């Protein structure tokens, strides 16, 4: 094979390899946006915060979280108890639908939230109990 032909083949091979690398990279990035985990986490945390703000001590709230549990399962969140967490001293609710990342929102109602866990359905539901703050 003459040198010209080798040069053409090499150049095109380099183009091809670069194209494959870039395409794989973009597919990986787009796949990471699948399931819209961050949007659903924001939706759930804000909806729960609204419910807690209107609630009174003694209320028991059951909330459909089927979509959240589906996404958390696909994103390999290790346990159901990690998905919804309630930080009572800071009046904060956090929802974790991706590994290593959670979305948090504060509520202004001066109450504590006790999670009763997620009951498997369908639909899967989360039950929480509203109580007076611990220092009362």
């Amino acid at each position, binding site marked *: 094979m003459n040198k010209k032909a080798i040069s053409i083949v090499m*150049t095109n091979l380099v183009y091809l390899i*670069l194209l494959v690398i870039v395409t794989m990279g973009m597919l990986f*990035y787009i796949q990471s*946006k699948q399931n819209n985990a961050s949007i659903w986490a924001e939706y759930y945390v804000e909806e729960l915060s609204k419910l807690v703000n*209107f609630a009174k001590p003694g209320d028991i709230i059951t909330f459909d979280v089927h979509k959240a549990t589906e996404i958390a399962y696909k994103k390999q969140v290790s346990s159901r108890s990690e998905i919804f967490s309630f930080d009572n001293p800071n009046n904060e609710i956090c929802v974790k639908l991706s590994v290593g990342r959670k979305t948090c*929102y504060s509520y*202004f109602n001066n109450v504590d939230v006790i999670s009763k866990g997620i009951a498997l359905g369908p639909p899967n539901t989360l039950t929480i109990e509203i109580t007076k703050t611990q220092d009362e």
Partner: protein
Amino acid sequence: MNKKASADSWIMIGWFIFLVIIMCIGIVVQVESFFDIGFDTRQIDSATLNAILQNCLTENEINFESSREQITEQIFEKCSLNKEVIENSMLLIINLENENKIKIGRGDETACALVNKNNDYPKCEISKVKLIENKKILTIITGSYQDSQQKIG
């Protein structure tokens, strides 16, 4: 092929890489702008706080003749509100017959009015309540700055 011509073909690879990078940046920006818009629930937050205060102030007796600190304490206790969250993420103004009684949190009525000009200002809700005991008008202005936070964990 002479050396000059062979050098040109490798320079074209540089251009190719540059164009691919521009294309990737474009795709990432479009995807991020579509998927990461998020929800703005500030208006709902301030409406919720306003509704809670309306109920609370009509059902409970608050002595608005006392000092600001005492009025604040009464409101937080009787309306079951968390002071830290209100101070850090919200705005609460209560006026009795145009006289300001309490102001908690960042901002003021002007900031509320300018929210359409600058999205960093709070989204507010304003309501008026007539007190039963003295027939005076109470103006409740609530605002919210709050946005969801991403944390590692």
